């Protein structure tokens, strides 16, 4: 027996409704009684692990009834690289390059997350200049990660131009990051107790110039998408997670906030002095793909706000803590006196031991709450390095969000989760 399904489509917006939101006209298509019965076996199809729209090596096994997704089973692990095992064989500073490769879309933020955890474990206080520079690094990471998300989500839903614009902005930020760290993508920015290097001469001026021009690009994207009938039709009421479901499935970051739960690690468990910055955290209400779009676009604007405040308050001073236990001597001293040479040698060859103990430090990464759980037994290599991956939990809720929707909605929902497989599979 064939059950007829009612398909609702939204057409171009004729205006706004009473609440100020773009109005939708539903078009209800119903089968006429005379149509013949169609064969309705369910299909089993496999999307991935090599597929342009899965944003990485994700495999979705989908049961389809026509175009409607009855069941979707995500398979992960195709990028499992043994990070956590490797961490047990590396010194704390040697783990920082590994953190670049987990969430490779926002590497500086991962570097900061790990350094914060190692510093809390070892009881090290970082300098003021280092704190503000790390805030700048985290917010730049948030912006570049959301740029990739916006580009790839738009391209999945059909808006190719947005992808090129977002990658062009990302290239401009790459220039800044490359001037600072030497690398575009895998930055290895932090060290335990400080940073790899200070920002070069004139860098803050160039960052300010970029911050002045960037919001215009966001406005252009909004002009393309915000009130676009196709975009609204593809994203509104698609992939809804209610607040209670979002909490139950341990979602975090923009996924959680788009569902209406106002939890942001920067506000609720502040680190790096975020409680002293003036910024807002956008919170959605419907928990659909459109709200996630709105939340992430607004987060980028708020990040620019934080960047400007950070630039205004950036103090002079050293970037590394004055703690010779963890900080290498400066190169000039190292090359001229024996004690510094031995100090450098011992620290590089033997690593810096952390006291016995454990820490769990959450940070607000662009994808969600990235937690670093480090357990130490007093040696220079951790006993356990656990990454609490936000995308892992966010994608686990995909079946809940996508079942009952159309196949093309599945692609849109998958894009809206903003996953990065490096972090999911570690």
């Amino acid at each position, binding site marked *: 027996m064939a059950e007829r399904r009612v398909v609702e489509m939204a057409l171009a917006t004729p205006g706004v409704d009473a609440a100020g939101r773009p109005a939708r006209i539903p078009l209800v298509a119903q089968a006429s009684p005379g149509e013949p019965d169609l064969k309705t076996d369910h299909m089993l199809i496999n999307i991935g692990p090599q597929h342009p729209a899965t944003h990485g090596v994700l495999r979705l096994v989908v049961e389809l009834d026509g175009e409607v997704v009855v069941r979707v089973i995500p398979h992960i692990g195709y990028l*499992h690289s*043994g990070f956590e095992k*490797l961490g*047990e064989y590396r010194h704390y500073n040697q783990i920082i390059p590994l953190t670049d*490769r987990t969430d490779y879309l926002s590497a500086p933020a991962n570097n900061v997350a790990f350094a914060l955890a190692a510093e809390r474990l070892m009881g090290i206080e970082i300098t003021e200049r280092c704190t503000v520079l790390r805030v700048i690094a985290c917010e730049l990471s948030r912006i570049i990660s959301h740029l990739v998300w916006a580009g790839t989500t738009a391209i999945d839903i059909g808006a190719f131009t947005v992808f090129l614009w977002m990658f062009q902005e*990302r290239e401009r930020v790459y220039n800044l990051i490359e001037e600072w760290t030497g690398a*575009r*993508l895998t930055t290895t920015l932090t060290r335990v107790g400080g940073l790899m290097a200070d920002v070069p001469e004139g860098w803050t001026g160039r960052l300010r110039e970029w911050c002045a021009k960037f919001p215009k690009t966001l406005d252009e994207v909004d002009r393309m998408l915000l009130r676009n009938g196709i975009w609204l039709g593809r994203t509104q009421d698609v992939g809804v997670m209610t607040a209670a479901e979002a909490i139950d499935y341990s979602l975090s970051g923009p996924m959680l906030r788009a569902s209406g739960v106002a939890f942001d690690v920067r506000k609720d468990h502040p680190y790096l002095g975020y409680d002293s910055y003036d910024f807002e955290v956008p919170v959605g209400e419907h928990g659909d793909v459109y709200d996630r779009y709105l939340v992430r676009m607004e987060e980028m604007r708020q990040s620019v706000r934080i960047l400007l405040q950070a630039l205004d308050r950036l103090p002079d001073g050293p970037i590394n803590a004055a703690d010779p236990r963890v900080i290498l001597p400066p190169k000039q001293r190292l090359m001229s006196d024996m004690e510094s040479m031995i100090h450098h040698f011992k620290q590089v060859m033997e690593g810096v031991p952390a006291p016995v103990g454990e820490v769990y430090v959450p940070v607000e990464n662009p994808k969600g709450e990235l937690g670093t759980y480090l357990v130490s037994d007093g040696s220079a290599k951790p006993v356990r390095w656990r990454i609490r991956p936000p995308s892992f939990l966010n994608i686990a809720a995909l079946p809940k969000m996508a079942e009952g929707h159309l196949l093309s909605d599945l692609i849109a929902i998958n894009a809206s989760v903003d996953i990065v*497989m490096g972090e999911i599979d570690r």
Partner: protein
Amino acid sequence: MKHVLETKQVAGQSPNWLLARLDDLVNWSRANSLWPMPFGTACCAIEFMATAASRFDFARFGMERQAFSPRQADVLICAGRLPFKLAPVIRTIYDQMPQPKWVISMGACASSGGIFDNYAMVQGIDTIVPVDVYVPGCPPRPEGLLYGIMLLQKKIKRESVFDPSLRVEQLADQRGLYLEPAAVDEVSEPFGNSIHQTRSA
């Protein structure tokens, strides 16, 4: 005319002048319209995307259309690390590509396992698929990938249509491997710092 059509059987070369010109034509058209199959796994895939985007744009080099279906692709670009779980996938994708086909191994992890010398990572995709060009870097800059593409174009221009050994479909041996086990073990040996970084405490 006789000397033009003389055939000289030298391995890997076209037999005579006329067929050499045919080779030039075929190689020129293949090299300048390489449609990549982006097998992007990790960070290198992001640099691959950046190479495809406006600033670097490999469409200038003939890679106008990224073929996401292996049936329509010429060159498999493995951009990113390859864990063991993904190994049968890349081999299947490679087998599904029709001849002529080439492979670019982009990045340190695809070329040798990179920083991941552990239980989960294939130590170089050349243990599974035959590689034509290795692009080192972690990740390689887009200019690096473009240079790798140019090297592949040079390599293609040296090929000959009359050399059947170039277009042989490699099948698995009875063990299921594509290289001798000793060869796999040898290329997967740790080297450099990795030899010493296996103590946990």
